[in-house]
């Protein structure tokens, strides 16, 4: 079972996404701010990070930079951002983010994007 780290400071959205992703067969750990996301990365079982770009203490952008340039990891990263945040999205891509989804987040769209980033889109059963 693939292990996702979900960084989202809105508990309502985090709760809904966790429910949907667990139903879809993922193991989901949540973190409510950037510091917690960073701390959770010590867990080597994490297969992908999904995080809001605007997080308290440590932004999604700083996280991408940290993962790619400090940890030197190619762990897939999907950012959640508002559509109006184009400048940040482009910057995040240039830093090495793999994909983004805009708010309001459609859980179904998120699942497709996760599977695509993981390269499993042609065989969704493989996520397990």
């Amino acid at each position: 079972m693939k292990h996702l780290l979900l960084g989202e400071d809105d508990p309502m959205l985090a709760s809904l996404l966790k429910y949907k992703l667990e139903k879809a067969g993922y193991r989901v750990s949540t973190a409510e701010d950037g510091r917690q996301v960073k701390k959770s990365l010590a867990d080597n079982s994490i297969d992908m990070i999904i995080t809001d770009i605007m997080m308290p203490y440590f932004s999604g952008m700083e996280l991408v930079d940290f993962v790619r340039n400090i940890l030197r990891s190619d762990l897939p990263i999907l950012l959640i951002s508002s559509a109006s945040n184009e400048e940040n999205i482009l910057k995040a891509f240039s830093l090495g983010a793999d994909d983004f989804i805009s708010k309001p987040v459609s859980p179904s769209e998120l699942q497709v994007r996760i599977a695509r980033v993981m390269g499993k889109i042609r065989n969704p059963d493989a996520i397990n």
Partner: protein
Amino acid sequence: MVEQLGGCLVVESKIGEGSTFSVILPYAKKASVAVELTPPAVKEEKPGVTSFKGKNILLIEDDFLQQRWLQHRLKETGAITQTTYTAQQGLDALLDKNYDLVILDCKLPDFSAWEFLSRYQHYPQQEQPQFIVCSAQWTKESQEKAVQHGIQFTLEKPFAGTELLETIQRALNNDPKPPQKRLVDLSGLLQECQGNLDLLDELADLFKQNILEFLGQCRIHLQASNAQGVSFAAHKVKSSLLMIQAAELHALCDQLDESAKENESLTYLESLYSHFLEAYPATERALEWEIAHLKSSN
């Protein structure tokens, strides 16, 4: 003797604490069980005033001030009102006569509106009147009870005369939805929850927490003249508002977010914040209503 005077005796007793005996007597002389107030035949209702002419309305309310105000407002509409002070007198009045509408207070001296409605179900009925239940505080539990008893119309005290008349109008027309005023829409979120009402309930609680956090943060940032902080807080809460399709509040937050980014005056940001504060309680009530309705229909 109390009963002969059209009143009632209420006893509240607690083991080890003692008993309280309350005697409630109406001001007016007892006619039947209820006190009838028929508008004078010669007096026409004022032009431009909503007309409920000839409609029989029963007011079951123990607060004399509230009673008098309701009678006054309804008299202007041409309605024929009768008032009772206790729930039992209300039940008796319903046996005596057919009413078009009953305005029922939630907390009455002898028993509650819910007990009233449970007992009324067993009464022989010809034509069922519409009910409007009034309460000073609509909690999640009381809203669920209202739905369970089939109550479609409610009022939260204190309410304005216009709200009273509009609710009566809708009740008499059997039109439960306020016109063009759907403050929340949970259909999309319910679909995302795959019909799981417990999850929806949990999300609604998280939504309320998010709003409280937004209100607190926004106030702190406004006091510190921190427009960037206001923008961040408003931006963050928008996704929660979108999830329950609270269009009006979402538009307000969007405006607050954009205005803060454009460094609009603090007074303007404060006015948007105040507007949100005023508009929010109705949205929270609508959210609770929708959930209570969804639960009752499952």
